[in-house]
């Protein structure tokens, strides 16, 4: 065996040892490496996102003043309608607070909205993710809900310094409880992303066998709404629509149905992260576990 072959053998052995150390060594090393390589790439991704925004800006600049005036007029009308709704909402909130006090109910979870631009979308068979241009410095926390209007987009999976990764509702790691439109008893079902189809789909399981979607015109499918249980997602947000008729599971004890997301998740330009003002039950549990270890 010549020196070159010996050197090759030694490098394979060394790399194998490093790999074993990597696998069984402290997880903080793996976390640090992941974080370091994400931060290394963050400025370039941010630059690419800002470049895209600039293109959009110049595209909007090229619009005629008539078009802009028309858009302004439409916005004015919408604003007038929304002002009335706001007043209505304020009255309802006050009434809700009074009733909660009377019934000794705890306060509703409060959220702070962080609006974020989408930097990139990454979709493979095994994951559907977007990267947003807001991170730890903007107060984004892991597992915060991500919405577009009243429609759920996903949940923050990882938070970095200036960027965050969001698992879309069709991503296999996504799970949340839901109510189905037309179910008078408001029974809780489970929504989870599935690893199937090129764009990813979500599946709603634990649907009671006596449930059938409300009859309506074609294209007006039953809505799937968040329950608010668990304190992660606020109640009443739209997760998607039941696609097709619910089918009975092989065991026959429940039904399941495919879900069409409420929004084309791969064409989003901007989303809002709902950051809980107070620690969520999950965060409180993690904190108490950390305290136990201390």
């Amino acid at each position, binding site marked *: 065996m010549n020196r070159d072959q010996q050197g090759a053998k030694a490098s394979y052995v060394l790399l194998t040892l490093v790999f074993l150390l990597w*696998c069984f060594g402290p997880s903080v090393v793996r976390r640090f490496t992941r974080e370091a390589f994400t931060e290394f790439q963050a400025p370039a991704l941010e630059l690419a996102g800002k470049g895209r925004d600039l293109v959009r800006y110049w595209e909007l600049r090229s619009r005629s003043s008539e078009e802009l005036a028309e858009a302004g007029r439409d916005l004015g009308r919408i604003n007038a309608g929304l002002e009335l709704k706001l007043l209505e909402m304020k009255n309802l909130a006050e009434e809700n607070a009074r009733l909660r006090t009377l019934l000794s109910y705890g306060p509703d979870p409060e959220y702070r909205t962080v609006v974020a631009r989408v930097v990139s979308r*990454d979709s493979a068979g095994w994951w559907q993710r977007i990267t947003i241009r807001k991170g730890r410095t903007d107060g984004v926390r892991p597992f915060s809900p991500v919405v577009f209007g009243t429609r759920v987009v996903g949940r923050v999976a990882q938070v970095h310094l200036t960027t965050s*990764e969001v698992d879309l509702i069709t991503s296999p790691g996504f799970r949340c409880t839901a109510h189905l439109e037309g179910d008078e008893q408001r029974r809780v079902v489970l929504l989870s992303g599935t690893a199937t189809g090129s764009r990813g789909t979500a599946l709603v399981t634990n649907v009671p066998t006596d449930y059938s979607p409300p009859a309506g015109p074609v294209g007006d499918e039953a809505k799937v709404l968040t329950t608010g249980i668990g304190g992660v997602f606020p109640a009443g947000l739209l997760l998607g629509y039941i696609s097709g008729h619910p089918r009975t599971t092989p065991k026959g004890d429940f039904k399941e149905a495919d879900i069409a997301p409420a929004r084309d998740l791969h064409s989003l330009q901007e989303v809002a992260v709902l950051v809980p003002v107070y620690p969520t039950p999950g965060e409180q549990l993690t904190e108490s576990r950390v305290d136990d270890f201390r």
Partner: protein
Amino acid sequence: MNWSWFLILLATYPWLLASDLISDAMADTGLVCFLSGAAIVAPARRFGRGQAALFALCVGFMFEARRPLADGWIAFPLAFAALAICGPQGLLRRPAAVWFAAIGLNVAATAVWLIIGGAGVLSLGTPVDYPSAIWRGAVQTLVAAGAAAIFAPFMLRAQESLMDRLGVPEAREA
């Protein structure tokens, strides 16, 4: 150890970023434009073993960093592949051989991340539609081969010319 591997990494990053931006444009199709496998071939045939392994590890970590894949399970296979390329350099002296190696390695690395990603999904207990997953895996592998076939010649040329400027010695005869 000199820092030429790091300079080549910085020069290779725009290609990896471009592949990420193409993946972004292709998000509707559920496919990823993967180039990390092809990116390690040219440096691995000219660098020493240590630098080649470090370069491949960094390229792998960059792909893993923003994706839900187990830490190190792309980076280390790429590093082993880089060590393997360091050996039979004579085979990789012809441009056509380098091009074929880039395609082959890109396809192999794609198969690795598809398997690792699948294992991660199965560990979550998520329902998997196997026929669809196999079909998509096959299409993704073809896309990776196509991406390497199209982009590798330009990327390899850029890497080679920078290595020439940095004075990295040409691949030795086997």
